[in-house]
């Protein structure tokens, strides 16, 4: 019986509209829901998986040893590593060429997991859209640059 009246009198709809009305007149600052992106940004949790970067050791040298595990592990095949022996010390392995094609990256973080020397890390950067795709196909120097800002190393 009650259900019948509720239906023919549109009670549910009216209740819903009342809620809308309530929010419509709610004042900013009190129980704010909308974030006015891009003027305002949501604080990100720790462990947020954003843009990748390469880190350095405390002496400023690259951490990456060019082991290629990140490339092997990446499910979307966006990492390319060409390893080589360092010029001045052929016994030292490093990545002669390192590139992440961010256009393909799915931000799964597997590469970071795979990296045995903690050379790869994820930053909290997420605004990556560009007019030119090439700008976010990132080579080693670019990734290191980002790492230098987001994971500063100690300069003695």
């Amino acid at each position, binding site marked *: 019986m009650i259900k019948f009246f509720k239906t023919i009198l549109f009670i549910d709809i009216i209740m819903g509209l009342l809620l809308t009305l309530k929010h419509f007149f709610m004042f900013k600052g009190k129980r704010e829901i909308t974030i006015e992106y891009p003027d305002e940004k949501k604080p990100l949790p720790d462990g947020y998986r954003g843009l990748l970067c390469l880190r350095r050791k405390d002496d400023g040298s690259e951490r990456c*040893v*060019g*082991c*290629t*595990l990140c*490339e*092997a592990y990446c499910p979307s095949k966006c990492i390319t590593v*060409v*390893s*080589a*022996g360092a010029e001045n010390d*052929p*016994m030292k*392995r490093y990545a002669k060429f390192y590139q992440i094609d961010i256009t393909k990256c799915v931000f799964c973080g597997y590469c970071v997991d795979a990296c*045995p*020397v903690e050379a790869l890390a994820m930053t909290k950067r997420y605004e990556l859209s560009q007019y030119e795709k090439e700008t976010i196909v990132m080579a080693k120097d670019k990734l290191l640059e980002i790492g230098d800002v987001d994971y500063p190393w100690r300069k003695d």
Partner: protein
Amino acid sequence: MVKLTINNKIVEAPDGMLLTEAAKMAGIEIPTLCYHPELQPYGGCRLCLVRIEKMPKLQTACTTRVCDNMVVTTESPEIAKARKGMLEFVLTYHPLDCPICDKGGECELQNLVFKFGSGFRRYAEDIEEYTIDTNDPLIDRELDRCVRCLRCVRVCDEVQGVTNLTAYNRGSHTEIGPFMGGSIFDCEYCGSCVAICPVGALTSKLFKYKARPWQTKRTDTICTYCGCGCQFALETRDGDVLRVVTDYEKGVNEGSLCTRGRFGYSFVNNKKRLTAPLIKTNTKLEPTSWDEATDIIADRFKKIIENNGPDAIAGIITGHCTNEDIYLFQKFMRLAIGTNNIDSAARFGYVNAMSAIKQVIGSKRFEASLDDVANADVILSISTNITEVNPIAGLKVRRAAKRGAVLIVADVQDTDIAKFASQNLIIKSGSERWFIHGLVKAVIEKGFYDKKIYKDYKKFIDNLENIVKGLSFKEIEEKTGISEKDIIEAAKAYSKAKKGVIIFGQGITHQQDGYKSSLNLLDLCIITGNIDSKGTAILPLCDENNEYGALEMGAAPEFLSGFLNAGAAKDREIISKIWDKKIPAKKGLTMPEIFNGILKGKIKALYIIGENPAGTFPQKSEFYEALQKLDFLVCQDLFPTATCELADVVLPASSFAEKDGTFTNMEGRAQKIEAAINPVGDSRPDWQIFSALSEKMGYPMDYDNADAILKEIAQVIEGCNSKGEGSAIENYVKTSVKELRAIYERKEEKAPAKFPFKLMLGPVLFHSGKLSGYSEGPVRILPEGRLKINPNDADRLGIIEGDKALLKNANGEVKVKVEITDRMPEGLLFYPEHFMYPAVRNLCKIDIDKDTKANYFKSAFVAVERHVPEH
């Protein structure tokens, strides 16, 4: 066969088989580390522990042989625990630097620990200091990663027979290194130890850190250096050849390679490669398009044909090209140009052996198997220096000798293979024919010949007896330095053999009268009954990898495809029918005749593929001059050679790594090669170039791919077989006494008093032709040539190691570094033929064989003195 039970499964296996192998056959995996199917059981790592009923404790499966009613368990908690423990032991001192280690991704230890290990180690020992030695030019030793399986030591000894590696110190201090100490391996650099090391303890410098195994593409192919025709795989990434790997189950080489095959690959990506067609404008070579280059060639060829006839054009092709390339080249020359003036690198000597063999066996295809060599009971190796020229064939000889075969080695110097020989006969240089005739004489006069053969070929043997009667053992000893007793002993051993094998090399084929000497050796085979029966073989060694193919495809004026006789109208008819166009009847010119033709003005244009006469002929020779006299020279090569500089058009060809096709090795075995990378730069496979040219010449030879050419080749060869004839040997033994006498002629060469030393140029282990000089590996081991000289000679001349010697004769003089070695007899000098500078080749003169027109320019008489550097 025995029956045993493994994991409740009844398994049948041959008696005496190792348990690991029997289990593998039954599809049961027993983890191993020190075991390797190529090597003798060792039992050092104890990872293969299994439980065998009625035996105390766990047993190592890799050292236990199966027997009837054996009951084996390979998986149980007890065994898993034992394995875990063993792995933990192995890891006690292991650095676990997998991210850097070059073996990561294909490391057997990594895989084992991943699968069976526990993931941590309880032993908290301080990591010991182990040798990390990177001073060797090719092989790095990082012994902290060594698991002491001794696979490297064993492969070097058991398979390679070099015994260069050893394990020194004891227990956990054990290290691996060269037997003589020091950090330089200074061995044959076959790389087997690197390939067999299960971990990253021995690694190749050339591949170091270049890629992970999962990043590379593997392409099975055949080595392009020598006539052994070893099989290997090229690992490539993005057009770069990164390394060579083998599978011990595959190919004639069964996984072994020599240093050229293993480390000589980088010429493919050498920056000096020709990448675009070049044409000569004024005096400089300028890059151009393929279209223009081929247009110019076709135009000039057409004009020359118009003015001087097709026989004013000639072509020479290298034995490094595929069968398809060579086949199409000779078809191009014979049909599109219309001449038989074609020759190949086989003219430097291999043709001698092949012509002789064809003379005896007729239309039958020549085949000899390296397996027969490995299984022979007597091997007669004459002037081969086999371990350096054809190392894998050398390996088979070593294997036979180790197995107990009688090995008789005759050479002008003390060669490496001689250390396995039962008889090491060092004959004087230039006396090879006396030696061979001595053997024939001994066989006949001492009655060692096959009795059945004597009945069949009585006349032949009597004729031979007549001829060798005039030669006394005393004269032979005088000339060769080998006593009657030794010759008789060698002849006896060879004639009593059930599986007798004769191997002869450049010392016979690339010398004056090479054709006759080859025939003499064949006579020896015939009269001892070692020619047709199973297991016997006569094997001429082959320096370039496809010289056999070059002759079989018909890149010779006297041979059509399938060794048909170009001089016989009937044979020409067979091929003409398949080709649907008449083959010119006019006799073609051989290589020396071509160069003489140029000098006489008869030949106007030369098309050279992969050969470099300007860089190989002595500069003072007429042939060298001839190159300058040409109206039109086309060069097709991988690298800008000295000949390219003289050329009017230079075409860039693709290397073996960039094309499909087949190579025929010295056994007569045709093997497929496959393109591993795209052609470098704008280069093209040779056959495509011929195809493009033929279209512009108005006789299109259009093929979709190399396979289509191979199909046509198969058709042609089949056509040849239909020829049919009686037993060729029957014909051969009818040779008249007069002819035989000519075949048994001996010419003596006398050193002029002013130039008492005989200088020989020849191949060495670390190089092959001129290609290896563009590869990093061979160059690192042997960057320059050294003149080998006997210590007594050196003493007399006041030369000490590290000095330079001045070689002089009428043709000029050169300064070379010396290496003093008692392997050289007195009066003889040896210099590797692969080096352009110093140009020792300029001292030589060109000799031309009367029978086959083979041209030799690898020896000279010289005077030697110590070179005093000016200050």
